[in-house]
């Protein structure tokens, strides 16, 4: 659905984005992660047809960002990280303004404005002036604006920045709802916990370079030269289990605490399955056997070097 091919953007000598390539499939929620100044907004503005690339190409729903921006604008809903609202306009007028700008016919407009207001829980604010709304409300209004033409692709730049915890949670629920509606979403953030729950894949960018991209599990796997296994066993079989683990050639080290064994393991998924099979066949009472998931924060910290900040 979204394709970025060798995108490079230079400002004079400064390279904001360097040879970036990634692909986002239909219905995916792609989390774009990176420290401040890494080049996230530059890439997003490029995809939103607001920025000419120094070189490279981008495609959204098959349309070229560079050569056919109007077609791209039709299929994307764009929410910039910093946006303003017009003075002296009411909420419904604001939405009507953008609905007309997206060439939505009159009869359909009436329906869709009502629907969008309802989806974003703004119905009670319909007749309020937009410049009198709180930050969270404005953020929601802007999201409403990006939805009026029912675009299959949403490009959201830091949609939850500057919101209070409640508004942040509500924004997250909203994005989940949009994901349920089958929209392809590119969302950027530097707050990782925001993305971890609902992104199907992520891309990590630093200093204009894409360091890793793919599903979270994939990246985790790429990252780990050794994985961490956590094995809970019944009390009496702990020493036996430890011996079996130590004997396995994929296991580097084993620590036991209470009746939990933590092992550093090097190998593929089937090696892991074979190990579990051995434990069980040797009569160890395995309560649980799992790879310890790496949190997104850990992934991020491992990948980025923190140079930008």
């Amino acid at each position, binding site marked *: 659905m979204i394709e970025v091919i060798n995108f490079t953007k230079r400002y004079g000598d400064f390279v904001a984005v360097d040879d970036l390539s990634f692909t986002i499939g239909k219905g995916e929620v792609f989390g774009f992660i990176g420290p401040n100044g890494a080049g996230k907004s530059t890439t997003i503005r490029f995809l939103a047809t607001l920025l000419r690339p120094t070189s490279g190409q981008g495609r959204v729903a098959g349309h070229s960002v560079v050569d056919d921006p109007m077609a791209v604008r039709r299929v994307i809903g764009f929410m910039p990280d910093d946006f303003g609202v017009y003075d002296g306009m009411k909420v419904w007028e604001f939405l*009507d303004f953008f*609905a007309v700008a997206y060439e939505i016919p009159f009869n359909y407009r009436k329906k869709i404005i009502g629907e969008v207001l309802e989806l974003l829980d703004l119905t009670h604010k319909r007749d309020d002036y937009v410049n009198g709304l709180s930050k969270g409300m404005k953020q929601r209004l802007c999201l409403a604006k990006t939805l009026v033409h029912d675009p299959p692709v949403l490009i959201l730049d830091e949609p939850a920045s500057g919101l209070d915890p409640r508004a942040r949670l509500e924004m997250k629920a909203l994005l989940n709802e949009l994901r349920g509606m089958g929209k392809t979403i590119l969302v950027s953030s530097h707050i990782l916990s925001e993305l971890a729950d609902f992104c199907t894949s992520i891309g990590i960018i630093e200093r204009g370079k894409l360091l890793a991209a793919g599903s979270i599990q994939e990246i985790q796997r790429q990252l780990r030269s050794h994985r961490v296994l956590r094995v809970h066993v019944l009390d009496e079989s702990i020493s036996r289990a430890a011996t079996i683990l130590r004997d396995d050639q994929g296991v580097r080290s084993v620590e036991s605490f209470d009746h939990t064994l933590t092992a550093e393991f090097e190998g593929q998924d089937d090696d892991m399955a074979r190990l579990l099979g051995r434990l069980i066949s040797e009569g160890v009472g395995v309560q649980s056997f799992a790879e310890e998931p790496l949190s997104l924060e850990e992934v991020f910290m491992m990948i980025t070097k923190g140079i930008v900040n």
Partner: protein
Amino acid sequence: MLLRDNPVLTRELLVNLRSPRSFLLQLVYVSLLGAVVYFYWPSESEGVRQVGSGVARRLFELFFLGQFFLVALVAPTFAAGSITGEKERKTYEMLLASPLRPGTILIGKLLSSLSYLVILIVSSLPLMILCFLLGGILLSEIARAYLVLILAAGTFGLLSVACSSFFRRTSSALMVSYLVILPLAILCVALTRTDHADPRAREFVTFMTVSVLPPWCLAIWSVVAIVIVRRLLRPPDVGSEGKDVVDEEEEMKYAIGVVIDRDLYPDKLFAPAKRTDLMPDGTNPVLDKELRSEIFSQGTLMLRVVIQVSMLLSIPLMAALLFLRSDRAGYYVAYVLTFNLLVGPVFSAGSITQERERQTLSLLLTTLLRPGQILFAKLVAALRVSTVLTFLLVEQLLLAFVLIEELRDRYWTLIVFLLIIATTCLATSTIGLLCSALSRRTTVAIVLTYMTLLILFVFPVGMHYYLQGFVSISEERLASFTVTSPFSAAFSIPMAPSQNNTFTSTPVAVPEQVLIHLTPRIALPVWAIFLMIYPPLCLVLYGVTYLVFRWRWWRAGGLG
């Protein structure tokens, strides 16, 4: 504390004078003045004794007027952003919460914004002394001129700081400063003219400028300063709780006289009723939004006051220029043109820059709207408001043409006058839009627009006045310099002298108009050439605006 160790002053001076730009600007300014002096300096063949004094007086007056308008134009650009800039950078509250006293802040802001201007003025002094050496001017006159300049700089600067303290945006403050200062400047120049033939009139003007003007200025300074300090001490505009919302009913309570009733004529023409339902299909949404938005959001009250005062002023002017001396109809038209010159840019110069400043441009640019649609909407909306407001002043002209016989006989001049006014409206709006597309900030766009309009409209009239009968140029050549000015166009229409000024009953011949030969065969008056060049010029400017907008905003990296 007020002057020494004033941190506000130190910081501003440091930032302002540190850039090489300020030095370059000064260099260019002095070189320009030097070039003018060099150009006028009598050559050796001319007897310095005979020509010198006349030259010196002309130069002196040119310098004075030029610098006076420079002060009027430049003082607001520095001062109007002094406090709004703090608000925009969100440093205002930090500054107010510091132990600095409001007086210290005010002095710091005022001196820092005027210091550069004063440096510019003083750097012209050596050239002025050169003129003095030519003879014909008194040293006291030079001193008087500089006194007026410094007083003007102080007054205009302080008024701009006052506007700055009252508004949230620099653009609004700058606009209102110009609306207040430019009429004041024109009035001041008219009152302090020294080229009266009557020596008693000259003496009176000297007396006024030396003994009356300074105390009055000081009084105005103190009042304005007290108002600003009180405002800084207890700022009503800190924080944003619901303040951004325009409450029309609340506004109307404070509106002096000008209350807009959107359902009534003529208000309907420039402020159509708010929509109660969705826009019909095929509407240009930008145009609809612009037309229906609060037209006075740009510095609400002052703009209303300026419009109100202009309307009131038009009545005595109508009596003086149309009914008593119908041959002065061109001067009434000049008044209408001045109104448009002042008010026109208010509605167009911010069109594009404000979208950027409000951070709505990126929202607009990702929609399906074409750059042509956006620009057209902006132009039409600005043109409509400024034209309707300007044409409200034309009623008096129509009345005069209906009632006065001498005017009625020459009804075609009415058509020409109306065409000149309409063309001027188009020109101010188009130039404003172009400047808005060229600039990144509204303040820059406003200054650029006023500068361009003054150069096109007012400068030729001044040139004409100063060169007349002084340099050996034919009247035709002289007139050909002024074809860009609607003022010259209006003055160039010959009007029959009023009969109540003549004692004979025979009709007096209409004075002949100066014709400019375009080719040896075709000769046209100034107004005809003016009407011929502006419509295509505006079209070209609009085309340039389109290209600039497209290149700069629509698909460019300028937003980053």
